[in-house]
């Protein structure tokens, strides 16, 4: 009677998925009410239904795992769609110095902390990536919510985000190369191949972006969705095969598309991205050991404090170079403090590569703190700045 078994399984899967989506919906509503990012609550939801829990997910776990994979691809694809190759080049030209400061000031504390924790060089480098990269998703949402899109410091903030994304496109293949530890030469070759692939894709995006966009363009939303998702998954999978993480492939597909096609694609992909990104955070939470999260919290909070200060310093320095006054500088600095999806993606890559198992709970605790504190911090930027000015 295999068919009965299949029916029972289908029922369990659907009930589990429905329940977990509702859990995420409640978490999202709470976050919305509090005016904070939902990412920390999604992670905690995963923790709640993880291994050993009373309400452990069993039947739907595999589906969520694949959903998480698709979530990474969609996060990066939609991110790439937001920027054109031209904007990337402009950002490189105008904010290069700030971009370098951003990398040095915010990755260094992570690397040092990783070494102090005795994790070994590779894990330390990954922690550097985790502390370096701000959350594009949280930052753009906060900018919109607080009505700052038209502010004069905002182009600088967005420019820094683009440079971070570019740095991540280069970091992820390097990190993946480090993970496959099989002799220095092979690792170097892996990194070189991945680096060349990234550089080549950027060139294609800059040179032929317009033509590619016209090729993909179609008035039917449905067909656009199918085409893009197909291309992105295919490129992401191919990238994974040459040891460049899937995420980078998806990012490059997004950057290659521009103009009205990118605009239309962003609209059709956004809801799908939200769904699968939630699956990704949930899945990351699922894999965490609740018992390991609490002990990781003090050290993670300490690192969060240090890297919040370095981010504020970076953002305000960049804004000052752009001729922005004190309040704008404080806004630019504080808004960048939030870390989120990309830090989790980097941590996920490290864990998938079998690196230091403490890194997972540590990264989760770190993101938990900064994804919550960052948006709150920047809300108080203006009152603080005006108080300083009045003195």
């Amino acid at each position, binding site marked *: 009677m295999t068919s009965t078994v299949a029916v029972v399984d289908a029922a369990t899967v659907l009930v589990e998925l429905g329940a977990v989506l509702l859990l995420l919906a409640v978490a999202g509503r709470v976050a919305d009410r509090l005016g904070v990012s939902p990412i920390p609550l999604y992670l905690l939801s995963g923790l709640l239904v993880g291994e050993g829990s009373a309400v452990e997910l069993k039947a739907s776990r595999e589906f969520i795992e694949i959903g998480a994979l698709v979530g990474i691809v969609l996060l990066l694809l939609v991110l790439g769609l937001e920027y054109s190759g031209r*904007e990337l080049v402009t950002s490189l030209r105008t904010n290069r110095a700030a971009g370098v400061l951003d990398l040095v000031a915010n990755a260094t504390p992570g690397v040092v902390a990783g070494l102090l924790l005795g994790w070994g060089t590779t894990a330390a480098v990954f922690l550097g990536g985790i502390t370096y990269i701000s959350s594009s998703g949280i930052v753009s949402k906060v900018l919109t919510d607080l009505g700052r899109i*038209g502010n*004069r410091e905002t*182009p600088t903030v*967005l420019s820094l985000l683009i440079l971070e994304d570019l740095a991540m496109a280069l970091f992820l293949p390097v990190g993946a190369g480090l993970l496959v530890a099989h002799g220095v030469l092979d690792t170097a070759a892996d990194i070189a191949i991945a680096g060349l692939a990234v550089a080549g894709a950027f060139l294609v995006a800059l040179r032929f972006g317009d033509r590619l966009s016209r090729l993909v363009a179609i008035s039917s939303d449905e067909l656009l969705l199918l085409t893009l998702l197909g291309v992105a998954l295919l490129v992401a999978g191919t990238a994974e095969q040459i040891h460049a993480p899937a995420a980078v492939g998806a990012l490059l597909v997004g950057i290659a598309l521009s103009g009205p096609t990118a605009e239309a694609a962003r609209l059709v992909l956004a809801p799908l991205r939200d769904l699968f990104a939630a699956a990704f955070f949930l899945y990351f939470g699922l894999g965490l050991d609740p018992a390991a999260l609490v002990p990781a919290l003090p050290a993670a909070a300490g690192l969060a404090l240090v890297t919040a200060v370095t981010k504020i310093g970076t953002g305000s320095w960049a804004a000052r170079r752009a001729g922005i*006054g004190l*309040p*704008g500088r404080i806004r630019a600095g504080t808004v960048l403090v939030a870390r989120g999806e990309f830090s989790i993606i980097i941590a996920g890559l490290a864990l998938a590569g079998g690196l230091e198992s403490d890194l997972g709970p540590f990264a989760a605790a770190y993101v938990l703190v900064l994804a919550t504190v960052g948006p709150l911090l920047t809300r108080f930027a203006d009152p603080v*700045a*005006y108080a300083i000015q009045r003195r």
Partner: protein
Amino acid sequence: MTTVRETQVPGVGVRYELDLESGQRIGVLVHRSGRREVLHYSPRDPDAVEAEMVLTAAEGKVVADLLGGTQLIESLTQMQQRVEGLAIDWLPLPAGSPFAGRTIGDAEVRTRTGVSIVAVIRDDQAYPAPGPDFGLVADDTAVVVGTPAGIRATAELLAGS
């Protein structure tokens, strides 16, 4: 002259800003979708948007018409005032005209009627701003500017009646 500064806002669109004579700073944010926002910057924190208005692409055109359109109407009115009491006409030089084969100076058109010959058209070709030495021939057309009464007098003069 008012200068408009243009800034790319990555992932959003283009922002234009200008400082007004009144000391206020305003801006227009043009989203890639065509949506427009009119921004007003805070006087005490000139980097921050204090108030904004969101316009659809169509609404933006209407507001632009209202702002720029007024200017257009004003200049049209001015032009009419300048043209009021002035007429322009095309007068033929018939074969029997006393001035065929003589110069514009000989005809003394401006002295007699206050009308200026601003161009002469001969065989589909225009000779703009002819001098007093310009020789008229039969079947020329004179383009004249002056009062309606002056133009009537010129037509009679050229026809030789």
